């Protein structure tokens, strides 16, 4: 076995053992890890759109919301439906995909700025509908959200209860961790395969120079639409898992800030580079936790009360991360080789 294989096995073992270790510290940490995986998943979905194809999507969380509400409506007492996950997740992905295509079709033949602003608006529109579609027919239950959503379950295995295998207790969150890890593995493989594929190369070509890409025979509109719809469907799947894990969805969870957070993860890590994006997402998803355990106590000790809420500080950090990354390391902390070269050339041309 070469060193690469050994390293790979070690990482895999560490990832498998992680929830068991975290459970000892506290189940809350397993939940945090789960949310972090979900954000990595989302970032990889957005990476297809922003990173590979260079389409700025500022309302990505809307697709996540679509997926979450599809799960919530198809598996909760709200409509009395309790469909299994293998029906809901594809339906959620499909709905998000259709939403993405409908939104992308009119805007993708225009310049990139329009897409950015249209997606920004779309995120807001989805929220307005989620908030208001409770009358005259109660579809989304309005701002109150939908509660008592079914969890994930395979056969008779309920992912909420604690089970014991081989003398080890697996709590609900720990089991979700493994499902999410499996899904994440899937999206990583898709991302890696896409990167090298014909379509992936077409996306990069469009990102770097759309006119040249068109001249090279790429049907830019269709290829862009594909990136957009594919990214949206990943958002839909992540949303479904979010609903299953939380057992509750409301419009509050799908605000603009979440879209910005995912965008910051992709940009900071390095647009287009799968490993960079994963690193960026992990780094930024622990920021809120980090702030909660440092900023809050420090401020309380210094001033006796909270001057700056961690939540506000978090958004300031994300905003600043976007600005600073673009200014000083436009290809991200862990850039994709090709992208780094492009951006480097830009700098030279500038000088």
């Amino acid at each position: 076995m070469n060193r690469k294989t050994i390293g790979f096995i070690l990482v895999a073992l560490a990832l498998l053992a992680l929830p068991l270790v975290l459970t000892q510290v506290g189940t809350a940490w397993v939940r945090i890890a789960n949310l972090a995986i979900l954000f990595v998943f989302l970032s990889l979905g957005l990476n297809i759109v922003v990173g590979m194809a260079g389409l700025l999507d500022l309302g990505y969380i809307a697709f996540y919301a679509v997926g979450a509400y599809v799960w919530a409506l198809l598996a909760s007492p709200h409509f009395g439906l309790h469909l299994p996950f293998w029906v809901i997740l594809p339906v959620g992905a499909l709905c998000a995909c259709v939403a993405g295509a409908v939104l992308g079709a009119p805007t993708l033949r225009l310049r990139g700025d329009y897409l950015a602003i249209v997606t920004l608006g779309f995120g807001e529109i989805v929220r307005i509908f989620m908030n208001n579609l409770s009358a005259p027919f109660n579809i989304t239950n309005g701002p109150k959200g939908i509660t008592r959503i079914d969890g994930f379950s395979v056969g008779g295995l309920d992912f909420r209860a604690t089970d014991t295998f081989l003398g080890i207790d697996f709590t609900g969150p720990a089991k979700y961790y493994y499902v999410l890890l499996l899904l994440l593995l899937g999206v990583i493989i898709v991302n890696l395969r896409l990167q090298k594929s014909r379509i992936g190369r077409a996306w990069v070509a469009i990102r770097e120079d759309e006119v040249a890409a068109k001249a090279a025979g790429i049907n830019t509109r269709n290829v862009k639409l594909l990136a957009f719809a594919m990214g949206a469907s990943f958002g839909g799947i992540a949303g479904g898992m979010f609903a299953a894990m939380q057992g509750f969805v409301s419009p509050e969870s799908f605000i603009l800030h979440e879209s910005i957070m995912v965008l910051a993860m992709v940009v900071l890590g390095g647009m287009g580079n799968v490993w960079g994006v994963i690193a960026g997402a992990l780094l930024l998803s622990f920021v809120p936790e980090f702030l909660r355990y440092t900023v809050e106590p420090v401020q309380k000790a210094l001033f006796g009360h909270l001057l700056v809420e961690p939540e506000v500080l978090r958004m300031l950090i994300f905003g600043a991360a976007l600005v600073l990354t673009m200014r000083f390391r436009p290809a991200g902390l862990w850039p994709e080789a090709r992208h780094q070269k492009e951006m480097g050339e830009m700098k030279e041309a500038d000088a």
Partner: protein
Amino acid sequence: MDILLQQIINGLTTGSVYAIVALGYTMVYGVIQLINFAHGEVVMIGAMVAFSVIMAVVGMGLPLPPVVIVLGGVLAAIPVCMAIGYLLERVAYRPLRHAPRLAPLITAIGMSIVLQHLALLIWGRDPRAFPQIMENTSHAIGGAAISSVQIAIILLSVAMMAGLTWFVYRTKFGIAIRATAEDVRVAALMGVDANRVIAVTFVIAAALGAVAGVMVGTYYGIAHYTMGFILGLKAFSAAVLGGIGNLAGAMLGGILLGLVEALGAGYIGEFTDLCQWPVARDLLAERCMADGHVVLFGSNYQDVFAFLVLILVLVFRPSGLLGERVSERA
């Protein structure tokens, strides 16, 4: 009361505010072909600064006429917003002028998030009620009412549009702005300092935004750190409707969008009342009997209209009403 006329008056009022904000988007777009994502936040900060100044002056209890106090607020907001506009250009746009298009868009959205949360830190999370110092008298015209604040907003907007048009078309600097918008390189060869023109354009846009912020704050009587986002989105839609990069287009687009929104919100409930459609009425007989109306979409969908307009324009006439062709030019 004449509801139609009333909605038109309300639409003209919000429309003039949209037009002023849209001018900010369109001017910046004209010179650098990029959207200033943080423009909405500039408007919000304008409202907030004016609010603070007005509150402080009112708190001092000086025997000043209300108009002077509000004017003081506006005059305080303008320089602050101009400074922010300049900062935006220097931090988010200038260093990335030759970078891929995606880069300045990302820095701008980052700046807008930072500005929004700085405002949250300074002014807090709760919406601020704008002090009601001006006596808001209503005047009856043709079965509808128009308040003095509405009259002031409309007149001020018209004055600002006229002033801006004069500046852009009649002054030397205005010619420089138009030349830069036409072709940066050629303008530079003619001795136009492009950096200066672009910076000044941002600053003027921000000044307009400051006034718009005060207008919207006084009109709704409320200011909030998130108000810039949706207002910016609508004003951008207005700019696109009129034809982005085109000054007259932004004005027309703003007014039209205000009217569409007011009339839409006013009448959508009537149009989507299911009880007036035969098939639906039979299906919902019980509810129609009980309530009289089963309204599918009410005025709570008001914010959707701007977005609908934006999408429709992009589908059917991406260049806008008065704009030239915008295509995916490199």
